[in-house]
């Protein structure tokens, strides 16, 4: 067997005649195009939500109200959280999964291509509906991304913005459920012969567990949102204590979704760095099965920790949730051990995807370490609703998800677009982002320990230490914004202006099947596949071909 015989371009069927341009993208059912639509829409919401955070930082740089009133500030932090969590992080992960799961398992598309396209349009319209609240007279939703009742009911938060937020999230949640069903069906039924479950790439495994979490928790959120909508619009009383409802019920329903949501947002990105680290270390992933079972255990444990967000309500079993929350450190530690062991004595190449992966390890570690502190009820009582919590989840979700997302973009952009992103700009992007992130979020730990509450537009001028830290944080946020600008310039220069180096089929020496096909892949993905005997069939084939080559 030779590489020539398995040329992925050989004997490809001609592409069906189809519309081109924007109509092509609107009517596409091709998983790759839908993946790109998700990714670029998600990045659009990332920029929008990021601008909201910059406005908040501008306001908080000094004590007093300079640029906006308190109500506007409430809208900004609500839509910042909503945008980043529901319309950036998850959709980008789903976009990458859309693009790469069929490629990684050797399939021509996902199991239900038209439902896949429908999912995308639901997500996009959902995001637009939620953000359209800014265009209404009463403004956007202003009760926080957690939508706590009774603050979110019609009495305390009247206006259309809140209703649009609910409807947008219902659409987005439904989109997520359909997408998850698609990923599970695709992974279970469309694997190429030889691609057994324990040969699936780690990224695909992580998406599978993420999909399970979505299938179980998103219906709970959607149900809760419908109940809240009924309360707000037709006089329901699900969450109205005065009428026999329960505000705590909202917290149970929301966090039963909300904590697994954290893992929905991080597991795909664990998967991305698990693809990158072995390739750039020149080694096999350490402990493949341990990795898979650690992922499953994280997913399972995530169902049983929801009320650690409710310690201070006094109506949940703090002991139970403290124990289960701390247990999550065990499988997460297994993953860290495996990542480090994979790099250990490897031939590490410090190209941009690997830099972002290492940045992910370091930043997520800080977020991970502060997690068990917050899982301790005694500490949680002291820092609940302070900037300490904001620091923790930004180290998890920005240091974790965002760093890994950019690692994935630099790693897979050549496959998606046929062009490598500029290494020089990539390294500028990385170092600026690392600096900006730590200047922004690290001082928040101290700010929280000093007692500054989150979700406030103003603070006393007498708290001079708070002012100094807030100036530093705002300066860091500006550097973060600059780093994103560098990335945007890189994408425009390398991809849209086509100035980037043309990507070969396998520019990094990758392991999984997406590196077998062309960059970008043809409509049909593959005309041939190598034999699949392990979780890294392309590596196996490459080395088999080396062994078969004539020597001397």
């Amino acid at each position, binding site marked *: 067997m030779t590489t020539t015989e398995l040329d992925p371009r050989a004997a490809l*069927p001609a592409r069906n005649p*189809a*519309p081109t341009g924007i109509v092509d993208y*609107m*009517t596409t*059912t*091709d998983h790759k195009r839908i993946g790109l639509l998700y990714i670029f829409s998600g990045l659009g919401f990332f920029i929008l939500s990021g601008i909201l955070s910059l406005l908040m930082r501008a306001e908080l740089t000094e004590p007093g109200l300079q640029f906006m009133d308190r109500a506007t500030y409430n809208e900004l932090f609500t839509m910042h959280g909503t945008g980043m969590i529901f319309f950036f992080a998850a959709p980008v992960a789903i976009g990458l999964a859309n693009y790469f799961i069929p490629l990684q398992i*050797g*399939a*021509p*598309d996902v199991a239900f291509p*038209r*439902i896949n*396209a429908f999912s995308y*349009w*639901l997500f996009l*319209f959902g995001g637009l*509906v939620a953000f359209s609240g800014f265009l209404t007279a009463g403004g956007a939703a202003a009760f926080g991304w957690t939508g706590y009742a009774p603050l979110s009911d019609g009495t305390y938060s009247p206006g*259309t913005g809140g*209703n*649009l937020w609910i*409807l947008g999230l*219902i659409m987005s949640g*439904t989109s997520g459920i359909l997408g998850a069903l698609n990923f599970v069906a695709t992974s*279970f039924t*469309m694997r*190429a*012969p*030889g691609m*057994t479950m*324990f040969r699936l790439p780690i990224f695909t495994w992580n998406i*599978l567990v993420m999909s399970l979490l979505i*299938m*179980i928790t998103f219906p*709970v959120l959607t149900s809760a949102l419908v109940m809240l*909508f009924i309360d707000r*619009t037709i006089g329901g009383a699900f969450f109205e204590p005065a009428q026999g409802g329960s505000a705590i*019920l909202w917290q*149970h329903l929301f966090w*039963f979704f909300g904590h697994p949501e954290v893992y929905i947002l991080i597991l795909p990105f664990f998967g991305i760095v698990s693809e990158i680290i072995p390739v750039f270390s020149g080694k096999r992933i350490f402990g493949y099965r341990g990795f898979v*079972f650690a992922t499953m255990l994280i*997913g*399972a444990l995530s*169902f*049983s920790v929801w*009320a650690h967000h409710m310690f201070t309500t006094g109506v*949940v*079993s703090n*002991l*139970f949730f403290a124990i*289960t929350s701390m247990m999550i450190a065990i499988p997460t530690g297994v993953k860290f051990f495996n990542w480090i062991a994979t790099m250990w004595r490897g031939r590490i190449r410090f190209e941009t995807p690997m830099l972002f992966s290492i940045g992910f390890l370091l930043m997520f570690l800080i977020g991970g370490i502060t997690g068990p502190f917050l899982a301790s009820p005694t500490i949680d009582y002291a820092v609940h609703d302070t900037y300490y919590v904001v620091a923790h989840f930004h180290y998890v979700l920005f240091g974790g998800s965002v760093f890994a997302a950019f690692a994935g973009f630099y790693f897979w952009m050549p496959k998606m677009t046929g062009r490598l992103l500029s290494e020089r700009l990539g390294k500028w992007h990385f170092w600026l982002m690392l600096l900006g992130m730590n200047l922004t979020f690290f001082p928040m730990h101290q700010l929280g320990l000093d007692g500054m509450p989150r979700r406030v537009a103003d603070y006393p001028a007498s708290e001079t230490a708070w002012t100094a830290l807030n100036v530093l944080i705002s300066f860091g946020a500006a550097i973060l914004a600059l780093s994103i600008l560098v990335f945007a310039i890189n994408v425009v220069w390398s991809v849209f202006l086509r100035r980037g180096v043309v990507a070969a089929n396998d520019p990094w020496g990758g392991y999984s099947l997406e590196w077998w096909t062309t960059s970008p892949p043809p*409509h*049909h993905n*593959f*005309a*041939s*596949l190598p*034999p*699949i*005997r392990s979780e890294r069939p392309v590596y196996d084939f490459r080395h088999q071909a080396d062994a078969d080559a004539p020597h001397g």
Partner: protein
Amino acid sequence: MAEELRFFLRTGVYSAIVGTAYWFASYEVAGSVLLFFVVFAALAFVGVAAAFVRQARDGIVPDGSTGVGRVLGVVNRLFGYGDEPSSSSDPLAAGLDPVPLGSIWPPIAGIAALLLLLGLLYGPWLLLPGIVLAAGTVWGWVSQGT
């Protein structure tokens, strides 16, 4: 197919254990119901797949044994982590699978859903066109070939 079933079975068994522990630790209704909903959902998937998908059933019931050995074999396969046999053949030897055509119906279905939901908020002037569009979408979607 066995690993696919085990994926859901592990979820169901774990949630049953945690749900039971949670109930006796807290006697709190909402969380207990949610955890047992997970048990039901996961085991429902396993049950339906095992009942109706022959490949799934074959994956968990060992051949050639009877009685206790068969039962133990089922338990072993359900809770083990064995993989399917290896294959070294050309994965695409059977030929290429069909790739679907593009379709206008998914974005139209999205617009129909948008009108229906906004209609709940703004009234019949959006709801009625949404219903008509949704009905048309169902017809168009189903009648379009693959």
